């Protein structure tokens, strides 16, 4: 039998909820561990060795030290997987990017603002090549399992491209707009089985945009349902500031 893939798990700027979700595979964790060797995971273990077949990386890059570490991880990893909205598209941390950085720092630390360096929050792909994305905030667990299985089998995982609306319709949910709420399902990338609308909540766009989103139409729908243009764009930016700023230019 071939050697098991060596797996490492890393975290950058974020809430570590995606890593926690990896520990939350209680029913599958022991089976998963049979197929890989976890060689590095700061949140769960002490060891720190050298090279890995697969690196799962959570969080966005927001300090000079982050940039150094991600380059080092990329050098050591055969396959690099971005896990969760912060790593894939910058996520919620990106909201600070549209405000002057000096103001942001001063608001929090006052006269001590220069004690701690900071950069705009970036997705991993802004600095290194990313091989696979597991999207969502927190990362969608069934998508992680699919990606994990594919990589262990030596296959390339397929990334979903259709909108959340497609999966929501398949589940025969009542449309969120029919309930007098707004929803970002039409432009948000599926793969989550429309989890939030299935629990009565609107889609907040955590999985990033579909390829070539029709943002003008999305803005019109949101305005038609009661948001101002400004508020509509704020909702769209929640997890997607980096991506939307990129689409603008």
């Amino acid at each position, binding site marked *: 039998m071939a050697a098991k893939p060596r797996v490492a798990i890393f975290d950058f700027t974020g809430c570590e909820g995606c890593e926690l979700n990896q520990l939350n595979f*209680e029913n599958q964790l022991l089976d998963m561990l049979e197929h890989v060797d976890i060689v590095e995971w700061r949140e769960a273990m002490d060891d720190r060795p050298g090279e890995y077949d697969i690196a799962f990386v959570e969080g966005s890059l927001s300090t000079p030290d982050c940039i150094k570490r991600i380059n080092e991880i990329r050098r050591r990893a055969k396959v690099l997987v971005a896990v969760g909205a912060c790593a894939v598209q910058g996520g919620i941390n990106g909201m600070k990017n549209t405000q002057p950085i000096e103001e942001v720092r001063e*608001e929090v630390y006052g006269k001590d603002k220069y004690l701690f360096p900071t950069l705009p929050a970036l997705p991993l792909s802004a600095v290194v090549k990313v091989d696979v994305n597991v999207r969502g905030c927190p990362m969608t667990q069934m998508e992680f399992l699919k990606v994990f299985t594919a990589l262990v089998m030596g296959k390339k995982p397929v990334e979903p491209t259709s909108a959340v609306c497609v999966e929501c319709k398949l589940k025969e949910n009542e449309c969120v707009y029919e309930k007098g709420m707004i929803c970002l399902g039409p432009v948000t990338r599926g793969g989550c089985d429309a989890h*939030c609308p299935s*629990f009565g*909540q609107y889609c907040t766009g955590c999985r990033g945009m579909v390829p070539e989103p029709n943002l003008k139409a999305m803005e019109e729908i949101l305005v038609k349902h009661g948001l101002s243009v400004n508020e509509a764009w704020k909702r769209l930016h929640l997890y997607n500031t980096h991506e939307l700023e990129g689409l603008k230019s």
Partner: protein
Amino acid sequence: MTMNLDINVEHLTRVEGHGNIVVNMRDGKLEKAQLEIVEAPRYFEAMLKGRSFHEAAIITSRICGICSLGHQITSLKATEQALGLEVSEQTVLLRKLLIHGATIQSNVLHAYFLAAPDFLKVGSVFPLVSSHPDVVVRALRMKRLANDIGEVVGGRAVHPITPVPGGFTHIPSADELKELKRRLVEDMTPDLLATVETLKTLAGEIPQFERETEYISLRCDDEYAFYDGDICSSDTGRVSDAMYREMTNEFVVSHSTSKHCRHNRSSYFVGALARWNNNHDKLCDLALQAAEALGLKPGCTNPYMNTIAQVVEAAHCTVDSIRIIDELLERGLQNEDPDQEPKRFGTGVGATEVPRGILYHEYTYDRQGRIIKANCIIPTGQNLENIDDDMKKLVPEILDKSKDEITSYLEMLVRAYDPCISCSVHMLDVDFLE
């Protein structure tokens, strides 16, 4: 005796977030003993500015995955107070059930996965899979059930979906709650008793270290306080949650991107041990039996015993979850719509006991229901000064040990607090300049 000592543990493992332990001793004199917090700042205050009240809990939940439920509930309480939104008794019961689930999950995760490897002298939980398979399977079963409470009631355990200002977007069915109750009775209760037995065999591994300090937690008259109550200090007694700034007094130190806190002394303790010391008279019998079996006594001043207090609380949360489910079933579940029509626009404070201690959120809203001012004070930030004070007392007491042993004692000390560094470096603080 070691006259010179330098310890520098970079990116301490098995804690949530990034921190370093630094100790320097020169000619027998302790120059430095501190936990450096190097987590990247995230600047949540900039993110919240101008955001709708619908989004406040969604955003602050992302301060921390492990504590996401605690942030959500605390945020909702602050928003509801600021906007005059009413919540039903059913909403309060479901929120308390969610808090219990999150507390069990977090406490079990810490005791088994993060702290236990220290007692068994291994680097992680993974070697235990083959050496102690029954224990690992038990821990996973307990964690799964605790997470299932979050999934059934909250729609998801990490960053729950259904809790919103004024109530819930989705109410669980009676059958789902009955099934949770069955598993709490048939699986969780025996698993807790077995956990106590396992921990009894490891009790000798818990370091003997005492330091008197101030303990701060919520306290209320009719139950072991998690969801509601006054702020209670073991030194100075009870005050209303509106007084939280006087109880925390945040300040910046250069070795930490998280602010520190103090109140009546140079530092104070929040978390399971503080709750135990202040509220042990409100615990159920099963929890009190667990405490007795594990040697946890009222007025405990050994910070390493925090892990034991967490297990005692898991027992209490299990018994109380069963009680809450019974009450919900007896009342009959109502499909209520959340009250989201603001009656006023002002300032509101939420204070909740989350697994790592007392958490405060405060928001001020403008007339469009958008945030103009926000403040969050996090349990781990409140504990940082206490951890530094512990290290300053501990290091001189264990100088006869090897450098590796001293390092291990210090790592175990920090882990005993179950620090959540992502949370503490949320940086959601100062008033916005319009």
